């Protein structure tokens, strides 16, 4: 088998060839020129982004016979040795299979000998996160102060598994996921070198499927090249790669949104028969609904949704027809059931049942709509020409002596436009009660929240101040713009003059409570320390059981 896969054939051999990791390669090149390369380096990042590659290039750059230079010659014995993996002074260790403390001890033994023929003795430990804790600890001393001829380079996909003591001794370089555009561009250059001319769309598909990993992209490209012999068509490509084509995802999501159970079952059956991964289908669908939601919210869609132009339009069209509430509902359910799909042995059955359940889902209404509906219902029940009474069952509020209100009473139709003034000269409290009645008649939910959360603070000539407290829900309800408008209108109507409504959050309530508590404590302490009390205790040889404040006793 002399065939070399693309990922190995086109492994970058100098820093310039590394795609999309300039922040690492530039730093390292500068470090080499300035002779400031750290003795311990940690490369971390997702799979297939170039960690091992960069480690090897750096090893070459440092040990190159033509000097440590940012550009290794790739011709000298040392460079070729490293490329082919048999350099005597560069040890590429597989951290995952040599993960014990024994292997680290062995390494420490060897560290002290000078390199055989190069400038540095370089240890590249790949998959370093698999080292055992004792192994890591055994490495600490050497890592902090290695002999001057030794360099360590660690590469890992899971830096969070590395002990903090190791991390603090290394210079860390984080590799980024490679964006789809750079992958596509790189794939294109490779295709050209391989004398192939696949179309843009296919490459884009591969790049997206690779999810930021160049090696994944190259493996996929390999797959496409070997089994299509010549120019593959886009449709063929998705079949070769086992990518669930976008059409299936679109169809399935519309079937779910339109609650078409038959179509759902047919699509799942189709995907299953093609041997595709149903768990992948699920993940793709989840992403699709996320995209739909983003499209529906409609801000920065281009940036947040990683799709080519025409699919984006299709996505937006699909999102158009449904309310964000419903999309959210579906997304929510899919998201919640994710674990059960992930761990099942029979994904098909689970998926079918879940999607059917989704198809039974009734679109939810937003809270606003619900409240409006409730209000309307209540009006129908209490209204109908009767006198307006206080919100039934709000409890604890006896119907106020409605002197002012009786003036505004009468048939509802007459009321709804102008119910005249409410006397505001007398008691603030009474005025507020009357006002609440009036609001509750038209907007029971808002009225109830007002009653619960708000207090009339000041009734001025031009300005009315209202303080709100209570729980977050009623607070939010009161502060909603629509409701503020209602409040203002009713107030103006009641006062017969334009006023400005000021709503402010209460702060006093909490502090007052605390102050009171402090005061009680203080009094109790005073009582206990009082000389009379002390004398009494001594004379009667008694002890103090409790201190009661007089007001409390009175109660």
């Amino acid at each position, binding site marked *: *088998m*002399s*065939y070399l*896969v693309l*990922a*190995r054939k086109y492994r970058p051999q100098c820093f310039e060839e590394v795609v999309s990791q300039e922040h690492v390669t530039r730093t390292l090149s500068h470090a080499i020129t300035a002779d400031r390369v750290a003795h311990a380096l940690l490369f971390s990042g997702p*799979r*297939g982004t170039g960690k091992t590659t960069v480690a090897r290039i750096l090893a070459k750059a440092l040990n190159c016979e033509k000097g440590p230079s940012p550009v290794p010659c790739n011709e000298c014995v040392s460079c070729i040795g490293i490329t082919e*993996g048999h350099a005597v002074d560069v040890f590429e260790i*597989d*951290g*995952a*299979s040599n*993960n014990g403390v024994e292997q680290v001890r062995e390494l420490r033994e060897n560290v002290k000998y000078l390199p055989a023929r190069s400038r540095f003795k370089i240890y590249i430990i*790949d*998959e370093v*996160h*698999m080292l055992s804790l004792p192994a890591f600890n055994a490495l600490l001393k050497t890592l902090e102060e290695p002999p001057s001829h030794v360099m360590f380079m660690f590469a890992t*996909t899971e830096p969070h598994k590395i002990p903090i003591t190791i991390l603090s001794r290394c210079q860390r370089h984080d590799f980024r996921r490679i964006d789809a555009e750079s992958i596509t561009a790189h794939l294109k250059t490779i295709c050209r070198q391989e004398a192939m001319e696949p179309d843009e769309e296919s490459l884009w598909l591969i790049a997206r499927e690779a999810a930021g*990993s160049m*090696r*994944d992209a190259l*493996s996929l490209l*390999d*797959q496409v090249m*070997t*089994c299509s*012999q010549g120019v593959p068509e886009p449709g063929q490509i998705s079949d070769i790669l*086992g990518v669930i084509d976008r059409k299936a995802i679109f169809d399935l999501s519309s079937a779910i949104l339109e609650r078409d*159970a*038959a179509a*759902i*079952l*047919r699509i799942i*059956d189709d995907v*299953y*028969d*093609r*041997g*595709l*991964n149903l*768990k*992948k289908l699920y*993940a793709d669908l989840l992403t699709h609904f996320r995209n739909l939601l983003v499209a529906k919210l409609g801000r920065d869609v281009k940036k947040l949704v990683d799709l080519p132009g025409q699919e984006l339009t299709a996505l937006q069209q699909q999102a158009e027809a449904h309310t964000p509430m419903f999309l959210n509902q579906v997304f929510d359910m899919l998201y919640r059931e994710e674990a*059960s799909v*992930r761990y099942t042995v*029979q994904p*098909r*059955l*689970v998926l*079918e*049942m879940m999607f*059917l*359940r989704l198809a*039974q889902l009734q679109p939810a209404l937003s809270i606003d709509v619900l409240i409006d509906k409730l209000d309307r219902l209540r009006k129908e029940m209490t209204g109908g020409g009767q006198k307006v009474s206080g919100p039934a069952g709000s409890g604890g509020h006896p119907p106020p002596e409605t002197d002012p209100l009786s003036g505004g009473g009468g048939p509802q139709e007459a009321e709804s436009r102008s119910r005249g003034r409410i006397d505001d000269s007398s008691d603030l409290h009474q005025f507020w009660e009357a006002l609440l009645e009036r609001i509750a008649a038209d907007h029971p939910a808002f009225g109830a929240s007002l009653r619960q959360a708000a207090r009339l603070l000041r009734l001025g000539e031009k300005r009315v101040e209202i303080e709100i407290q209570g729980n977050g829900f009623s607070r939010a309800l009161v502060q909603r713009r629509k409701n503020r408008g209602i409040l203002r209108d009713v107030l103006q109507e009641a006062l017969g003059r334009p006023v400005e409504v000021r709503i402010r959050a209460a702060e006093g309530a909490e502090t007052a409570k605390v102050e009171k508590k402090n005061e009680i404590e203080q009094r109790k302490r005073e009582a206990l320390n009082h000389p009379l009390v002390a004398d009494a205790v001594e004379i009667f040889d008694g002890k103090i059981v409790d201190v009661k404040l007089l007001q409390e006793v009175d109660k």
Partner: protein
Amino acid sequence: MSGLDTIKDQPAVRRLESLLREGVLPHALLFTGMEGTGKFSAARMLAMALNCRRYDSEPNHDRARPCGACSACRKIRAGIHPDVLQIQPTRSFIRIDQIRDLIHAVSLKPYEARCRVAIVSEAHRMNPEAGNAMLKILEEPPEQTLIVLNAPQTSDLLPTIVSRCQHIRFHPIARERLAEILVEKHGVAPERAQVLSAAAEGSLSRALAMRDAHFEQRRNALIDIFDDLTQGPVARRLAFAEILAADKEMLEKSLEILKLYMRDLVVSRFQPQLIVNRDLAARIEQDSRRHRLENTMRMIEAVERAQKRIRANANSRLALEAMTLEMIDA
């Protein structure tokens, strides 16, 4: 050719053949597909094709058609070829020691093979240590080495492993084809083959296991009890739970059968041609009208819950009783 006839219509096999003919076989392959779709046979076919002696004398012979008669082919088929390494889970896991042994073995020169082949069956059972230990060798194995991983789905493996392999999918075997295989190769009566092939959902090994476990009788008995159950008194339900719990070996399978039947009840409303228990189509259609949709779906959930609890080591009798009590069709 070596049991490959059964899977010769797999697109995956055609791809492997073209890789062999073009001489562009990569060093690491990942076969995915459910059990019984020919992954292992295909891996063995690869090993034979790479090592067949016939090519020594006839260099122009079709590279994808090993003779199956030379010493190498026969050794591979018998599973005793020294350079065809097979790794299987021991006690539900593939452990790091097995992978270390593999790494050691492939670092030496092959004994007699032209190309050494390591087949890791059920690669998703590699524990994390083993999986990570595999990474380096998977990316850059020694010369003349092919590593083949078999797993049900890519999502069951470490992403770092998947990214190092070329991925080949095995489709479920088409129903008609599976029935044919059962009749021709395994001497199953044609009617029975129809039932088994439908219920096995594209897996030959599953179909054979079902044949050996007298699937139909079992299923019919379960369905009969189940039908009575949903309307019957509580005592009968508890008795059903007891019957189920008594046979620990078959419990998991019995529940799967029940679940599939209930799934058919649901599915037949929307897409009658997609049901699994085809031989019972008439009965299922009739029954599905009798049960309410939400109830059936709720019962499926109840079964799933019970399975989960049993897997988590709950008292199976209790879990099953809870399940049967939830199976009310009201």
